[in-house]
């Protein structure tokens, strides 16, 4: 895979999306279904990313103890509404320490 093509396509695509919103007529927003779909899309994708990053290894389900434990501790921190950095550090530290043990 050519990573440069991916990086440049991501940059161009993301920037054009942002610019597009400043150029299109605002009344498109009044279409409820379109607005709802765009608002909900990240919810579906983020939930899928959580699952894939937690249990997938390539296209296999791979249940790795330290990874799941770190994710679990991070999930508790999310539930307790901890600040973002605390969540990230707790998750990483848990997995790293379990691997040392």
């Amino acid at each position: 895979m050519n990573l440069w093509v991916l990086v440049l396509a991501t940059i161009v695509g993301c920037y054009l999306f942002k610019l597009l919103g400043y150029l299109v007529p605002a009344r498109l927003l009044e279409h409820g279904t379109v607005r709802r779909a765009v608002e909900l899309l990240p919810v579906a994708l983020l939930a899928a990313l959580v699952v894939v990053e937690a249990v997938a290894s390539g296209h296999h389900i791979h249940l790795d103890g330290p990874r799941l434990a770190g994710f679990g501790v991070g999930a508790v921190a999310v539930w307790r509404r901890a600040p973002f950095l605390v969540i990230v550090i707790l998750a990483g530290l848990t997995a790293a320490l379990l691997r040392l043990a």
Partner: protein
Amino acid sequence: MNVTEIRPDAAARRAVVRNCLGVGVAVGAYGFAFGAASVAAGLSVLQTCLLSLLAFTGGTQFAVVGVVAGGGSMAAALGSGLLLGSRNVLYAMRLAPLLRVRGLRRLAAALGTIDESTAMAIGQRDPALARLAFWWTACSVFVVWNLATLLGAVGASTLGDPTTLGLDAVVPAAFLALLAPRLRDGAVERRVALGGALIALGLIPITPAGVPVLAASAALLLAATVRPRP
């Protein structure tokens, strides 16, 4: 210290700037995790920093390097990244009448259009405060996010194996943290999230890497039966 001459609007402006800087530091610092995850996925430090400088949209950046790390195709990585980035169109449409920018300032405003700058801007009652909030949030997140990306990328490339750092646990926890505020929004959000998670889980063993995430967008159909909020 003479504070008696401060007009209320100056105090309000100061409070907005303070809040925006707080958001900038808290959110931007998370660029450290992106920088490290990106280098661990196989991107160079330069590629990693360019994504943060020019794509500048965290969810997309994490999705792209996540699919690459999982061995997914370029189409799958780009597809999930762009699907996540599509929400910025909506943000920009909301901001356009508020910011009323033209020329170079419009190009800069487009780059700065992200979850946080939009949220801080549309949360203000006064249009002038909204513009202030947008620019301060966008600029402070941009500066901290890019510095943190560089530190994370350089740090990961010198420290080596990402699993010893527990990065593989950091990434799903980071996505969950991004998702959590939306789960608290309502039952429709929770249903769509559960649907997306189950679709992805079911597809992991039978499709190439990256496809489960793209296919999860079908979970939107779960919301189709529910009337949109006014």
